[in-house]
């Protein structure tokens, strides 16, 4: 049985798709057969982030409607044999994502994969609810910023009341916090919430801290999951998060500011 993981946040622009791409690629690098599905119907972007936008023929909605079969729509990643991308449709019909259809497609994917990563749209509307409904695990992508933390809290509430596991009184969805765009230098200055602050406020276990990094934009520019960039601090932080997800102990890196000389610190030069 594949494990279904939803990448969600409530708020937009916090790094859900970046995380979905990086995490899926990270799981594939660890040898797990992984598919990443775009649930953001009408605003398809996972294909661009994964660098397969020119290979999209059929999509999630085509498969739900029976216009194509699964293997026609799945795109095999060219860099890793374990990784597949399942793009969404650009339709403006927001009801196209039917819950029973999604359930059928997930059941079929379960036969072929170890992990199914669901990249949720922002908000708490139909698409976001459908993305989280079937989840076994959830990764809550949060920026150290008030509106993101508040929206994460809202999504955590929805996961514990409206997921299938909640409706069926099954063991609850396994919820993890992933703090992204973390800037240790600003945290040290008291300008940004600390990891501990966010953990304390949301009271869910921490899976990882991804530092603010130029390599994330570079990765999206080139359509490469950031975990495929061995030079990237963000990529390494994502790989640590994947390892923790798989049950390994890893120390948190990139949470302290890089050392700078006393004189430079005093005069504020970077």
């Amino acid at each position, binding site marked *: 049985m594949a494990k279904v993981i939803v990448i969600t946040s409530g708020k937009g622009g916090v790094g859900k798709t970046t995380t979905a791409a990086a995490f899926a690629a990270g799981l594939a690098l660890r040898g797990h057969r992984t598919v990443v599905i775009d649930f953001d119907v009408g605003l398809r972007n996972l294909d661009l982030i994964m660098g397969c936008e020119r290979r999209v023929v059929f999509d999630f909605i085509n498969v739900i409607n029976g216009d194509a079969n699964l293997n026609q729509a799945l795109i095999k990643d060219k860099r890793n044999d374990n990784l597949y991308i399942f793009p969404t449709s650009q339709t403006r019909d927001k009801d196209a994502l039917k819950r029973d259809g999604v359930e059928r497609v997930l059941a079929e994917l379960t036969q072929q994969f170890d992990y199914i990563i669901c990249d949720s749209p922002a908000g708490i509307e139909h698409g976001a609810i459908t993305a989280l409904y079937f989840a076994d695990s959830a990764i809550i992508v949060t920026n150290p910023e008030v509106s993101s933390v*508040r929206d994460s*809290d809202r999504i955590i509430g929805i996961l514990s009341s409206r997921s299938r596991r909640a409706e069926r009184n099954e063991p609850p969805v396994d919820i993890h916090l992933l703090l992204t765009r973390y800037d240790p230098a600003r945290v040290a200055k*008291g*300008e940004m919430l600390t990891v501990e602050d966010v953990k304390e406020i949301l009271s869910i276990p921490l899976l990882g801290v991804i530092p603010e990094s130029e390599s994330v934009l570079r990765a999206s520019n080139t359509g490469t999951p950031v975990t495929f960039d061995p030079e990237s601090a963000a990529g390494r932080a994502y790989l640590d998060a994947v390892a923790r997800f798989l049950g390994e102990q890893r120390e948190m890196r990139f949470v302290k500011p890089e050392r700078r000389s006393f004189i430079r610190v005093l005069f*504020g030069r970077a």
Partner: protein
Amino acid sequence: MRLWNLFSPNRHSAAIAKERLKIVLAHERAGRGAPDFLPRLQKELIDVVGRYVEIRDDMIRVNLGKQGETSLLEINIEIDPAKPRPPAPRPAMAANPG
């Protein structure tokens, strides 16, 4: 950190963020899972009580809590005994026989 930032009022903005979040989330979590009818119930209670005594919106508080296994609907109505309304005919009621 620049030396003069030590005296800047913005220095602890993260601490302010944390405090604000704690307060707003405590409030929102308390209201979570509450049935949608609570605000309507509160409004109707204000209308009914308001026929007998002068009352402001914030003088009625409706909360759904839990005591062990029992759900508890708690209604607090603060009234000012010095301001009863005269028992005059109520045009609002007469105009609305339904």
